[in-house]
Each structure stands twice: as C-alpha cells, then as structure tokens.
C-alpha cells in the first residue's frame, strides 16, 4: 500500500516536473528562434539579408530541431524546415520580394507553434 502510494506520488511528481520543464523549454527554444527569424525579416525587408544570415538561422534551427524532435510532432518540425528552406532559397538568390512572404510565414509559425502545445481549452478538445 505504502509502496503503491509512493509510486503514484513519484509518477505525479515526475509528470508535473516534466510539464513545467516542457513549457519552459518549448517557450525558450521558440523565443530564440522567433528572435532570429524577426531579425532575418527586418534584414530581408531592408534588402540587406545575405547568404550568411540565412545560413545562421538555418544552423540555429538545425541545432534546435535535434532537441525539439523529442518534444513536438515531427510534422510540425518539417513544416518549419520547409518554409525556412523556401525563404533561404530566395535570399540566397537575392530575391527579397519572393523571400519576404516566406519569412513572414516563418515568423507566424515560430510565434504560434508553441501555443499549440500550451494548456488551453481549444487545444484539449
């Protein structure tokens, strides 16, 4: 009986700890990524973004996604991959007009994606 209750309490503690860490970690990762995308957006808007900027964001994302794969569905990660590659492709070619809408989509995703995993009524159902 005592053993069972201890296991239950341990499982609850483990879950609560994991939930807190999950919220914090996801927000931290996406905030950093969102800041990087924001900078890329401003540079693209000012037509000053170059290959290095695109490459820097891609490298940052590659590092983050290796860890995020543990926590969020891989399809969502592929979604970011797709839009990031599209945006960088345009930036590498110097096509800022084409890159801007793609970076805009990326900006939206990086802000809204973590909300899909937060505790909200619409997410529960």
């Amino acid at each position, binding site marked *: 009986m005592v053993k069972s209750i201890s296991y*239950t309490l341990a499982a609850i503690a483990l879950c609560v700890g994991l939930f807190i860490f999950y919220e914090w970690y996801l927000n931290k990762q996406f905030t950093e990524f969102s800041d990087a995308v924001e900078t890329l957006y401003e540079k693209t808007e000012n037509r000053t973004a170059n290959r290095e900027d695109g490459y820097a964001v891609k490298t940052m994302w590659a590092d983050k996604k290796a860890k995020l794969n543990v926590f969020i569905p891989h399809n969502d990660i592929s979604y970011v991959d797709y839009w990031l590659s599209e945006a960088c492709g345009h930036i590498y070619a110097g096509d800022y007009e084409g890159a801007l809408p793609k970076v805009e989509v990326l900006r939206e995703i990086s802000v809204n994606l973590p909300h899909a995993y937060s505790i909200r009524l619409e997410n529960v159902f």
Partner: protein
Amino acid sequence: MALIFIRTAVIFITLLAVMRLMGKSQIGEMQPFEFVITLLIAELACIPMADSSIPLLYGIVSIVTIFILHQIIWLLDLWFKPMKTVICGKPSVVINRDGVDYYQLKKNNLDVSDLVESMRAAGYFNLDDVYYGLYEANGSFSALEKESKGEEKNSLPLLLVDSGKADKKNLAKCGLGREEFYGFLKSQNARERDVLAMTVNPEGRVYFQKKGEKYKILKLKVEKTW
C-alpha cells in the same frame, strides 16, 4: 505535455462513463476501469511506436497518465465506498425468490435470453434452479442454487417468450401450435406482451412469469422432443 495528460484523462473518464452506462453486458469479468485501461493502453503504446512523426514521449506520458488514474481510482475504491459504486457499479440481483427481476435486467441492458445464456454458462439450465442470481460489478454471473437443482437433468428448456416476444422458432421446435400457445396464455390470463419469461422443457414443465408477478411452474403438453 500537460496537454497530453489532460487529453488522456478526458478520454479515460469518457470511456469509463460510457462503459458504466452500457451496463454489465459489455464488461465481462473486468471492473469497468480495468476494461477501459485495457482498451486504451494497447493503442497508447502502439500509435507512437508505429508512427514515427509522434514523439515517443507522448506515448510514455499517456501511459504514465493511465497509471496515475488507475492508482487514484484504486485509492478512491479503498477509501471512499460511495465512489466504488460510482466507478465500478454494484451487483445487480436479477433473479430473486419471485423469479426474474425485469427492472434489474433492463437497468443492465440485458434481456431474458442473455440471462438464460449466463445461467447456462454457470451450469444452471432452468430459470428456477437458483434462489438468487446476480451480475457482479465486473459482469460475471453468480448464483445461490436451490437444493432441488438438476432434478430434470436430461432436459434442455427452450425459451418461448422473452420480454413479451414469442420465439417462433422455439415454438415450432417444441411442436407448439399458434392456437395451443395463445390458448395457454389465455388460460393464464396473460397476453404475449405481458409475459416476461416462459420456458418449456421436453417433459412439458413450464416456467412462466408475467411482468411484475411471481413466477409459476406449470405443465404443458409438448408434441416434440429435442
């Protein structure tokens, strides 16, 4: 991740409520919450395992959630007796000294043929072989048998009327014509829809019970044997 926990809990509670509402016929030898866990756990383990787009952690969290819910229900069962009735249900006495209890049968979404089937599985072939018959909370059938049980060892009773509906195949099997059958009902001052249960064995021994009344053991001449 907390979202996965909440979603799993919501599905668990919904399934548990539905299983309780479905009655004992759907459970079969398990407590309702055990049955729900059995239903859920295989899927929870399989989906993240087979679908590589879902992190394995989601499956692990769901399974741990089920474990926590199981432990909570188990503790509620031990500490708060009224909760045990709410979660697991309580035994239903479907046969008492007056015969079959129609209200209890309906409450558990069962009919007389289900009861006869459960009794046969438990080794009782006549509805009056037992003083009391009950469905336990886990759906299994228990009975307190009569001393006279099994006097008519070589006969299998046929169910002629089940909850107000005559079984034409069984009527034909025992060679009972329409006129004889309705004549018998008339002699008992009953219409077909008033009869809760009526069985007959090859010796013509009839178990006859009208809805809301005590059962009677009667005699009827049957043409065929089976």
